[in-house]
């Protein structure tokens, strides 16, 4: 058992028994799917089919756009009937004819082929954030990774998707972990799981004792942790399993760790071993308004309404449908929405089980929020600053270290929607940063133009001077009259050296930024470099001009 602890945390009612009793089932094939183009972090995918095209299950229908993006595949066979800005709609033929990629053996295949396969299969993290997996698998090109953490904590109440996935596919999940450990070069795999999932733990333990002799590529450990929310938070879990702290603003990769959710690992194995792109996932369907709660294999793009209908929903008692857990999830505004790759849970809740928050009362500074904050922030101080829109103080008090777990709101006796305040404050500050960056960029472009004009002017003057010198030497009357003022050579030389230094500095800054973040565009830094180069050219032109003039003077 781990001796490490993360600060804070709460013990909300688990309510997992509602969905973890029944075995994993398969939801019926939907007659129509709506595939959102943006199911992941990053840019939306670009459709690569046309209305009327016939597709099979697994056909690529939208290609990723740029680095941080993911492919989208048809999740049923049928015909594309509509393409909008946001989604592709496919009418099913009910036959579920598949197209798959050739199977690969992850032990022997080339690393690049495996990465390409993850990319082609549209794989993203299935835990909720939805970060494209192929990028995460390449992270060891910049960071040394020693440990792969399988995040099976699943700490949010209600959700049991990972639990059931592990019970049914424990060996596949571990094989998927070996696959990703190979890709990122991790020598150790640690499975972190909360102690409220005894059956999944048993399944894992049975496998780990067997595979001890068969010598897997990476060593595997199972760590059972106490049930406490939010132990499934990446940073919290890493602290608990490895006693390492992810630096503020940094990633687990910065301390040599990668985290993957069991569902993602299973999907990765399916993509590599079976050539199946990501078209279905395990979803927990639960809540008091559902008659057959449980976990289901659901095709991506299935409408929530259809799905709820299948598991039996008491509409008159239905108060709200929450996507994700009751701590961090978001309520659906419409049942027309569809299941995406990141939908791990749908809670069809009655008013009694997830009642509306009582009216907000004044903060009594009780400090309950602070004692449960897993990031060790001061939620109450942040609350005052957020309401006062004091962005400087918010940033100084590390607002951006907030993981939005909702523990503070959960314990607040005054029912203050703290997390909501922080989310909107973060949004406001991000927006402000973008505006500042835009203004900065405009300023740099203006400076560049000024520098270019100065350079052109200096060059023109130099040419004129040269012409004049030529004429004078041709006439050679040597009257000694001074035609041009002799500039101070020394100060011009200093200016030229300074301009050279500025160019070198700009080059260095750009190179460093590019090395740190190769995926990012650095327009601004490039403009700055170009401006410095213009300035250098102008200084050189002025210097040549001055030299020509002074030679002219000394010549006779």
């Amino acid at each position, binding site marked *: 058992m781990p001796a490490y602890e*993360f*600060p804070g945390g709460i013990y909300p009612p688990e309510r997992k028994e509602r969905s973890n009793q029944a075995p994993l089932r398969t939801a019926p094939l939907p007659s129509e799917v709506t595939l959102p183009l943006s199911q992941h972090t990053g840019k939306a995918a670009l459709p690569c089919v046309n209305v009327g095209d016939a597709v099979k299950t697994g056909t690529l229908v939208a290609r990723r756009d740029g680095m941080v993006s993911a492919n989208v595949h048809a999740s049923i066979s049928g015909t594309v009937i509509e393409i909008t800005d946001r989604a592709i709609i496919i009418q099913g033929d009910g036959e579920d004819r598949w197209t798959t990629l050739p199977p690969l053996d992850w032990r022997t295949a080339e690393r690049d082929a495996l990465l390409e396969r993850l990319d082609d299969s549209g794989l993203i993290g299935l835990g909720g954030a939805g970060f494209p997996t192929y990028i995460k698998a390449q992270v060891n090109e910049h960071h040394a990774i020693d440990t792969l953490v399988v995040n099976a904590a699943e700490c949010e*109440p209600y959700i049991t998707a990972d639990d059931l996935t592990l019970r049914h596919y424990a060996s596949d999940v571990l094989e998927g972990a070996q696959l990703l450990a190979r890709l990122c070069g991790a020598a150790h795999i640690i499975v972190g799981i909360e102690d409220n999932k005894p059956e999944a733990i048993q399944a894992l333990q049975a496998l780990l004792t067997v595979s001890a002799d068969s010598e897997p590529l990476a060593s595997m450990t199972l760590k059972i942790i106490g049930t406490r929310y939010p132990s499934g938070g990446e*940073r919290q879990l890493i*602290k608990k399993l490895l006693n390492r702290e992810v*630096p*503020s603003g*940094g990633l687990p990769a910065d301390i040599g760790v990668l985290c993957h959710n069991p569902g993602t690992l299973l999907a990765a194995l399916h993509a590599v071993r079976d050539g199946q792109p990501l078209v279905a996932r395990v979803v927990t369907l639960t809540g008091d308004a559902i008659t057959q709660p449980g976990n289901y294999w659901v095709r991506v793009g299935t409408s929530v309404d259809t799905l709820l209908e299948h598991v039996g929903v008491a509409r008159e008692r239905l*108060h*709200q*449908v*929450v996507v994700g857990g*009751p*701590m*961090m*999830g*978001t*309520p*659906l*505004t*419409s049942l027309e929405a569809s299941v995406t790759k990141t939908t791990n849970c749908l*809670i069809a809740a009655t008013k009694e089980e*997830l*009642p*509306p*928050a*009582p009216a907000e*009362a*004044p*903060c*009594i*500074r*009780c*400090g*309950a929020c*602070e*004692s449960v904050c897993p*990031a*060790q*922030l*001061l939620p*109450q*101080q942040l609350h005052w600053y957020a309401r006062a829109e004091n962005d*400087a*103080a918010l940033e*100084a*008090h*590390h607002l951006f*270290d907030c993981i*939005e777990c*909702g523990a503070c*709101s*959960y*314990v*607040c*006796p*005054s*029912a203050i*929607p703290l*997390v909501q305040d922080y989310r909107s404050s973060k949004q406001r500050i991000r927006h402000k940063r973008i505006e500042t960056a835009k203004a900065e960029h405009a300023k740099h472009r203006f400076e560049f133009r000024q520098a270019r004009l100065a350079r052109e002017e200096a060059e023109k003057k130099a040419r004129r001077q040269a012409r004049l010198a030529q004429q004078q030497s041709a006439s050679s009357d040597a009257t000694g009259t001074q035609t041009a003022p002799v500039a101070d050579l020394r100060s011009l030389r200093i200016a030229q050296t300074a301009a050279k230094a500025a160019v070198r500095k700009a080059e260095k800054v750009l190179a460093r930024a590019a090395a740190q973040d190769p995926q990012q565009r650095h327009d601004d830094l490039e403009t700055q470099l170009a401006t410095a180069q213009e300035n250098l050219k102008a200084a050189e032109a002025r210097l040549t001009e001055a030299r020509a003039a002074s030679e002219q003077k000394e010549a006779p």
Partner: protein
Amino acid sequence: MSMMHAPQLGKAPSTAHVMRWVIAATLPGLAVMTLYFGLGVLSNVLIAALWAVAAEALILRLRHRPVWPTLNDSSALLTGVLLGASLPPASPWWLMGVGVIAAVVVAKQLYGGLGHNPFNPAMVGYALLLVSFPTHMTLWALPQPLWPESLWPQILGTVPVSALDALSGATPLDAFKHKGDAVLASEFWASSPLPEGTLSAWRNIALAWLAGGVVLIAKRLISWHIPVAMLGSMMLFSALFYASDTSHFASPLFHLLTGATLFGAFFIATDPVSAATSRQGKLLYGAGIGVLVILIRNLGGYPDAIAFAVLLMNLCVPLLDMVSVPRPVGQATARPDERKSAP
């Protein structure tokens, strides 16, 4: 379909719930006090509570604030109960009125209402009464029957001031404080300075307050940090005094079990609004109160000192909140990042 923000699940006990539980937790203390000092204790609490609710309703009306939702949070009621419990038994009705108005109207509502008062309202009321009406405030009766003869005249305030002295007896803290420098502690106790049963009465009352406090901590309605820090620092600091001169300073146990020590530690110092907020801040805040209480009791002019110690530490709360910032996970230092706050 409704739209709610995350988290959707569960809500903590409301402020009103917390306040009512604190009121409920005063019951053992009040019961034992009544047992020893008579029904005057209950009359105090009732009259102060009525005054508090009436004063809060009036000032809310004057401030054009919703009256019922605020009264419903029971915070004014709690202030009244706590102030009533602090005053000598069967204090006159107007004394409570003055104290409660100072507490609820001035110390709380004029600063912006619940959550905005820098000082502990009940202790503001108490301190005001202590400096303004010293005669009435030292009218601690001797342990007496449940229904004292002079109950009504005392409540109604019809006892002439000249007769007040006859009704009062010294509290143990008071008696020890005024024993005189020439008298050694051993001589003082040998002369049996207090009527029989006084010490045990105060001790039993203190233990009853402790019981209520333990309930509050067990139910997680208050955190342990302030009471433990306060009592711990009181014990340590009084032990230092005691060790330096056993014949003139009282023992730690005497400080713990007499006066308002335990009542103050669990019911007064733990007022969240006027106390420090972070866990580390609460420890410093409680320890500060403990040190001040012993300093004032041993060297100052007032025998009990809880009210002044709490008010003085209220003054230090902004500073404590500044120095007791925890280190956010993943950050190098605890202090707010000054570079970010620069304009």
